[in-house]
């Protein structure tokens, strides 16, 4: 793994991206790494635009905000428009193609994954789209180990939803595997 990842997760309120960011940071800490998670709140907790940022590093982290992202995940057209240019030249962009269409980023390596549809149809509930997304991110980058991620997810999700979340995670890993081999 590289020494440091600056990750930005953008979408709509209610898509669980802040929780996703927290889980990713917790997974990093479980592995003994440093992590900082910050967020911006829209006035609406549902439906407005939402952004979570996570920095994961082997070293201590000084500046806590993501400048140009190493990895950007966008799950809404508004977020795509807003954040797609703030990515490093060699950065990674993951588009949730369920909602983000007609977006052709000028830089970065782009992966289009049908994240929300997979959550809805393959796992059974769209509310776990954030967990599918974490599977996609970690499957692609290895920013944290799958074991640490699963542990962090299970510690955070409501009791009784563990199996569904595991299924969502597995679906995410599978989806990115297919996307990479198709590319």
């Amino acid at each position: 793994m590289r020494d440091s990842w600056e990750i930005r997760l953008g979408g709509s309120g209610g898509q669980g991206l802040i929780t996703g960011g927290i889980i990713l940071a917790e997974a990093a800490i479980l592995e003994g790494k440093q992590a900082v998670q910050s967020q911006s709140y829209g006035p609406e907790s549902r439906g407005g635009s939402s952004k979570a940022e996570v920095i994961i590093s082997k070293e201590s982290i000084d500046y806590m905000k993501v400048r140009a992202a190493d990895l950007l995940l966008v799950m809404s057209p508004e977020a795509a428009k807003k954040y797609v240019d703030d990515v490093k030249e060699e950065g990674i962009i993951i588009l949730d193609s369920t909602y983000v269409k007609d977006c052709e980023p000028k830089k970065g390596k782009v992966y289009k994954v049908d994240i929300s549809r997979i959550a809805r149809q393959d796992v059974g509930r769209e509310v776990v789209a954030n967990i599918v997304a974490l599977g996609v991110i970690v499957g692609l980058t290895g920013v944290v180990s799958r074991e640490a991620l699963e542990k962090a997810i299970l510690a955070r999700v409501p009791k009784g939803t563990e199996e569904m979340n595991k299924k969502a995670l597995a679906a995410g890993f599978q989806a990115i595997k297919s996307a990479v081999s198709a590319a």
Partner: protein
Amino acid sequence: MNVTSINARLMQGNQACAEGAIYAGARFYAGYPITPSTEIAEVLAERLPQVGGKFIQMEDEIASMAAIVGASLTGAKSMTATSGPGFSLKQENLGYAVLSEVPCVVVNVQRLGPSTGGPTAPSQGDIMQARWGTHGDHPIIAVSPSSVQECFELTVKAFNLSERFRIPVLMMLDEVIGHMRERIVIPAPGELDIFERKTPEVAPSQYVPYEPQDDSLVPPMANFGEGYRYHVTGLLHDDTGFPSNSPAVMGAHQDRLHEKIRRGLNEIIMVEEAETEDADVLLVAFGCMARSAARAVKEARAKGQKVGMLRLITIWPFPEEALRQLAEKVKAIIVPEMNLGQVVDVVKSAVEGKVPVYGICQADGEIIPPERILEKIEEVL
């Protein structure tokens, strides 16, 4: 795995502040909901009864400040938390606590002002209010953490200073530090020093409540309900605690309040220096801005520019001495702060024209990024 890594976890700054209070022995919290400090109240509403402490949501900010002073007089380490508009309302009874020398900790998670301003927008705009918010001449202690770990540890320290010097201590967070989550290692019990307030050693009949017993000029404090019947007032008073309008008594009271803090400066002043040994340019920063400045130092050094930082952990009393010493060595000072010029003017006055001092001042609800500091460094070098 050793003990510390077992205790490592992701935590929000506001939560770390609340947990630090519990660790310090806080057993009373009164507050009023206000963004972006509310998590502190929420955590303590749940945590305090678990340790036998008390939480109360008061009818307003003024009452919250009053209630913690009342609680502290019974011996309970007490805290409240707020943000801009609430901090304005606290000023009345904050002054009361200063004058009557009742220990307490007041957290201000700074947001963009004035007035309702920007409730979720970070700011460092209450620095001067922390110093002079309540009326009249008065000393104050204000500290500002730059990390989640420090939210915890500095809250413990804030309680210690408050109990030690019998003065309210202001924890000046900002929205960035209060809301971000990062790795924290919760100290084991006993790992951090905890100071317990000095109580009288004499019998009640011999107790003179405001008479200092040593050079610290901080008198021992009796808890209400323990047989030491004495009077507490917001009027200037003599050592017995009873009011007086004699100029000699009123002047002496004011002088002692200031002098006890002056004598404690070695314990109170906390700063951190980074890369200052050979620095040509010194950044002076605090709170979340110290994180941006730390990155700027790193990137400037990578370009071969000699830049260092003085991080202010204690803001009031202002660390003038540390700054003066550095001013002897550097060629310029830059103060990046999320307000339109508060600390920068204090820095200017402290260095008395020895070196040029530049502010990077911004009050738009965004943290000032390292790029802007780096630009300024290019400009002054």
